[in-house]
């Protein structure tokens, strides 16, 4: 959680003062979901996420140089600098796809789960998306097939209550996103997305179900995004009191306090974790800023396996 927060904060600081140039969709506020999901997945389990997925990538263990490098279009990026924030892929950590199209990751995740089933693998695919994605046709098609074919998928809706600039109540006539699973006879639950342990418990149970042949699960993790839709979004559409109330439930200070109160970690240990996160980000950033842009020869690489029949 603290590492994802440190990455997000450093990117916003550097972009805001002209130190470097990039486009991000900040994940600040949603770190507890990513931590719970990432810790519940095996390394070879697949993850599909969205452009607001930097926290998810950190949670799945993608090296910071690959994340920051891709965001800044450098050759050491996860997609060798050719994908940008919206298209980060890291096969070694199981990150199959980051998509820039709302709802588009869902059928891809279902396909990855179908592949695992056909290959006789016990790996599970988790797919993260926002509340807005559950209004798309691709979401419902994916949910339907995953349930019909009992595929090992964990659908994780990171419900941050806003779809770009539109509040959730303007686009759906149900009280809880989790109710959408009922149309597909899919098990699932709604959890506090600002509580990493609640997310972890729910995702762990869903992963076990998928791995043991029990089919898909839908999880709604209710959270909030503090920095708007994209970096620089002034959030004039967002009532100030709603943002203030959401920040009261900021998962990071809240979990820090819980760890302190329970005696799990001391204040010094927590501070050391924060400092280590900052140091990791600074070290990765220095490496990324010094790295070259992709070579021109990269232009037609990774496009088609076989160029035969492809017009040149």
């Amino acid at each position, binding site marked *: 959680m603290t590492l994802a927060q440190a990455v997000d904060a450093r990117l916003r600081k550097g972009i*805001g*003062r*002209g130190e470097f140039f990039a486009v991000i969709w900040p994940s600040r506020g949603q770190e507890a979901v990513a931590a719970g999901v990432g810790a519940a997945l095996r390394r070879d389990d697949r993850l599909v996420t969205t452009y607001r997925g930097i926290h998810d990538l950190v949670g799945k263990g993608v090296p910071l140089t690959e994340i920051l490098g891709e965001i800044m279009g450098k050759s050491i990026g996860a997609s060798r600098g050719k994908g940008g924030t919206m298209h980060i892929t890291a096969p070694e950590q199981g990150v199959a796809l980051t998509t820039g199209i709302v709802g588009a990751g869902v059928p891809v995740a279902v396909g990855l789960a179908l592949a695992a089933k056909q290959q006789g693998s016990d790996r599970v695919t988790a797919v993260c998306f926002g509340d807005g994605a559950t209004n798309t046709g691709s979401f419902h098609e994916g949910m339907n097939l995953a349930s019909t074919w009992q595929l090992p998928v964990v659908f994780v809706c990171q419900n941050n209550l806003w779809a770009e600039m539109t509040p959730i109540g303007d686009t759906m006539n149900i009280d809880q996103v989790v109710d959408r699973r009922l149309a597909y006879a899919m098990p699932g639950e709604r959890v506090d997305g600002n509580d990493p342990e609640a997310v972890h418990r729910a995702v762990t149970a869903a992963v076990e179900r998928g791995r043991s042949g029990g089919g898909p699960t839908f999880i709604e993790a209710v959270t909030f995004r503090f920095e708007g839709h994209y970096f*620089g979004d002034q959030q004039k559409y967002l009532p100030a009191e709603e943002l203030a109330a959401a920040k009261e439930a900021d998962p990071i200070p809240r979990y820090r306090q819980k760890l302190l109160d329970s005696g799990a970690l001391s204040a010094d240990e927590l501070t050391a974790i924060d400092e280590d996160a900052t140091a990791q980000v600074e070290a990765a950033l220095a490496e990324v800023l010094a790295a070259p842009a992709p070579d021109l020869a990269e232009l037609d690489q990774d496009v088609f396996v076989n160029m035969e029949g492809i017009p040149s």
Partner: protein
Amino acid sequence: MTQKVPVQVPKLTMATTEVTFLEWLVEDGQPVEEEQPIYVVATDKVENEVAAPASGILRHGTAEPEEVYPVGTEIAAIEVP
């Protein structure tokens, strides 16, 4: 040896390709602290204060009020002792 840290026009939103320089908040040759707002730009009809990327002496460049500058333009430098 003095190191010069460039002050570059930031990409303030997803759609920003250029900004309108409005004014300096710190005089030429004055000391600034990292993160201190040092100039104001307008983009998407919104005014933004831009923070210093380092602590040191601010050296204004050639930016003129109401002039438009592309993202990345070096409009000043900070001399770090």
